[in-house]
């Protein structure tokens, strides 16, 4: 329930941050670190933020603190999202009118999308093939995870390894984007566009191509280099029947938020902004230190060695849900199988969203699930802080009983689409042959069982 106290708290915080900014020199432009709209989140969870993070004396830092507080209060149900958006945006305008503008693009809370998923056929096909070719005379490779074809777009989920030392932009422009794609009906698809991110050693993302192959297309051929034969992707493969949507008892919003924060901690080990989030919720009177949700969070935090606010030092620990205990029990495990699995699934539409799982890669210390979404997502324009509550909660359990918390670690969002990379922690059991992925939304829950057809190309 939105409260006047929480709104007042956020407005006074904006005021205090403005006063702080006015004691600082006027701002100069701080370049961001965006690549094709894809946001890397992993670094944010451990050492830095999604954005170029400057020292504590930059007006952008106050802006970020305010955005974190706004996100936390909205997610906890203590303040209306539109009110929070206004407060952050007016703060940004107040900074701008005093030449202390922030250059943290996208820090103001994002707009809510309202697009519905398009009607029609959605297909997802696992590929699991690695193509090696020469780029500038040096070895390069592309690992194809899956092809996802929807009525309005088609993407090829890939992990690429550019030649050592090659500039990322050059790699994308000269070797990824010119990929040739054709189908059994003689259609030559338009130039693909890569979006994603990574480092010098590896880029993970997707190649989007147009038009989307229609339901009558049986296969597409993908050729990355003229000297290499095309890889044929059969679109006529058997699709798993869509799993049912089951209703769930929704816990109190504040409990749900705290459990989501705990899940994020379980996934990431620590949240950069956790102390700020808890300070805000305690100071604004949104939660009591001794509440069950806080006790669960504190228990997880202590077991993971996360630094928590001092006022929580006396909060007693409590019993944790089974899945949390399982994740904690395997903290630090590095026994995951290495390879990719032909794990794809088309989920039924729920909560106004259509989700498609487009491949899984398993590593010794974690697994990565590629997910594509259609419809409205709450976070757009790159707005993400640790306090943001995602639209869905993601968990998974392998067939050896090991639970995994899944957190969105990178992605790109627009009004109608979401391209996400989820990290599963801890790694899969070394002998896992199937994985239940459990997605919980506002109106229900979907559990899809992914057979893990391992490929180790």
């Amino acid at each position, binding site marked *: 329930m939105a409260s006047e106290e929480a709104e007042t708290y956020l407005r006074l915080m904006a*005021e205090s941050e403005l006063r702080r900014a006015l004691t600082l020199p006027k701002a100069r432009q701080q370049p961001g670190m965006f690549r094709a709209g894809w946001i890397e989140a992993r670094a944010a969870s451990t050492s830095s933020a999604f954005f170029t993070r400057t020292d504590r004396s930059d007006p952008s830092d106050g802006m970020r603190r305010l955005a974190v507080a706004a996100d936390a209060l909205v997610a906890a149900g203590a303040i209306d999202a539109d009110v929070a*958006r206004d407060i952050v945006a007016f703060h940004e305008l*107040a900074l701008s009118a005093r030449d202390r503008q922030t250059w943290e693009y996208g820090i103001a809370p994002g*707009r809510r999308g309202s697009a519905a998923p398009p009607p029609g056929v959605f297909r997802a096909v696992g590929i699991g093939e690695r193509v090696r070719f020469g780029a500038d005379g040096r070895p390069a490779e592309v690992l194809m995870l899956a092809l996802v074809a929807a009525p309005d777009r088609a993407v090829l989920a890939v992990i690429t390894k550019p030649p050592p030392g090659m500039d990322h932009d050059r790699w994308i422009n000269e070797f990824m984007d010119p990929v040739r794609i054709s189908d059994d009906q003689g259609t030559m698809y338009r130039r693909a566009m890569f979006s994603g991110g990574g480092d010098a050693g590896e880029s993970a993302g997707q190649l989007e191509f147009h038009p989307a192959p229609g339901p009558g297309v049986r296969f597409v051929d993908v050729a990355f280099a003229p000297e290499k034969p095309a890889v044929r992707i059969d679109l006529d493969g058997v699709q798993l029947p869509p799993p049912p949507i089951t209703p769930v008892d929704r816990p109190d919003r504040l409990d749900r938020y705290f459990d989501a924060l705990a899940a994020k901690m379980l996934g990431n080990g620590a949240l950069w902004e956790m102390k700020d989030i808890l300070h805000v919720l305690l100071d604004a009177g949104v939660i009591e230190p001794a509440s069950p949700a806080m006790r669960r969070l504190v228990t997880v935090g202590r077991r993971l060695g996360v630094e928590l606010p001092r006022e929580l030092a006396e909060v007693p620990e409590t019993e944790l849900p089974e899945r949390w205990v399982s994740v904690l029990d395997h903290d630090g495990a590095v026994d995951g199988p290495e390879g990719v699995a032909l794990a794809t699934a088309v989920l039924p539409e729920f909560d106004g969203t259509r989700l498609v799982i487009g491949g899984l890669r398993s590593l010794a210390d974690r697994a990565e699930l590629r997910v594509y979404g259609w419809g409205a997502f709450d976070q757009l324009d790159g707005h993400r802080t640790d306090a943001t509550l995602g639209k869905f909660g993601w968990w998974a359990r392998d067939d050896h009983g090991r639970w995994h918390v899944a957190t969105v670690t990178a992605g790109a969002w627009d009004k109608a689409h979401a391209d996400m990379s989820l990290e599963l922690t801890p790694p899969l059991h070394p002998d896992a042959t199937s994985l239940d992925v459990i997605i919980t939304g506002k109106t229900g829950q979907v559990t899809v069982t992914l057979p893990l057809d391992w490929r180790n190309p």
Partner: protein
Amino acid sequence: MSAPWWAALTPVTTTVLCASEHRLRWEDGRLLAVDHPDTEPEIVLAALGGDEPECVRMVRAWARQSDDLAALAIGPRSADDDFDVSPAGLQTARQRRLIIARWRPSSAADRVRERLAELYELFSLGQPFTFRLLATVAANWVDRAQSARPALTAALNARLAPAVSTWLRMDPDGVDASIYEGSGWGELARTGDSLRAALPVRWIAAVWAAGLAVADGKLVVDVVSVTGPTAEVLAVSRPGAQPEPLTLARTYSARGEAGWQARKPRPTSG
């Protein structure tokens, strides 16, 4: 008994390019198009889609913005604030569009953009008009403060904190201001490094906007009457004390900046 909220605010005049260079004048709480003695028919005509003289457009914009709390959220906190939306400052319009476009869906963003463009246009009339606009906004919320208490609390805190910092030489973050909704002037209490203050919204309009917040080493809490250049106010010498009457005289610096100075009591003869 208090003076009207605008009593200590002197009339101010500026010019805009209308049919020719025309005067806009603010006095007694209203913006007037001086060179359009009968604006009513022009306003009606403009509302029906007719041509709108610039002076009339500005008067209508003033009326539309006169209860917009965005003015208090963005506008100056004190006379020393680094606030600058002069015509030169309007070059940041592109940046504002970027800010607004990403926090509202496009149709709503268009409306917000229009509203803010108008607000910034009024800000660009200069500091004297900006302070009077903020006073107008605050005055329009005096009787319905409870419906926007968080925004008004922040607006009061924003302006009281720097004043208290000057008055008591304390950290402005130590000021805990709230909207006083009872009868009387309000309350002030100091505890350690913090000051709890409850003042009515009227304080922003009648006291702060007139540059009266701190005078003669005291915090002015209300304006009782204004006669010519002399203002009778209620001022508090220290937290916890009751306000006492104080007579202030308007002064002007060599650069023409208005201020207030305590009028020394005349020695009595005999």
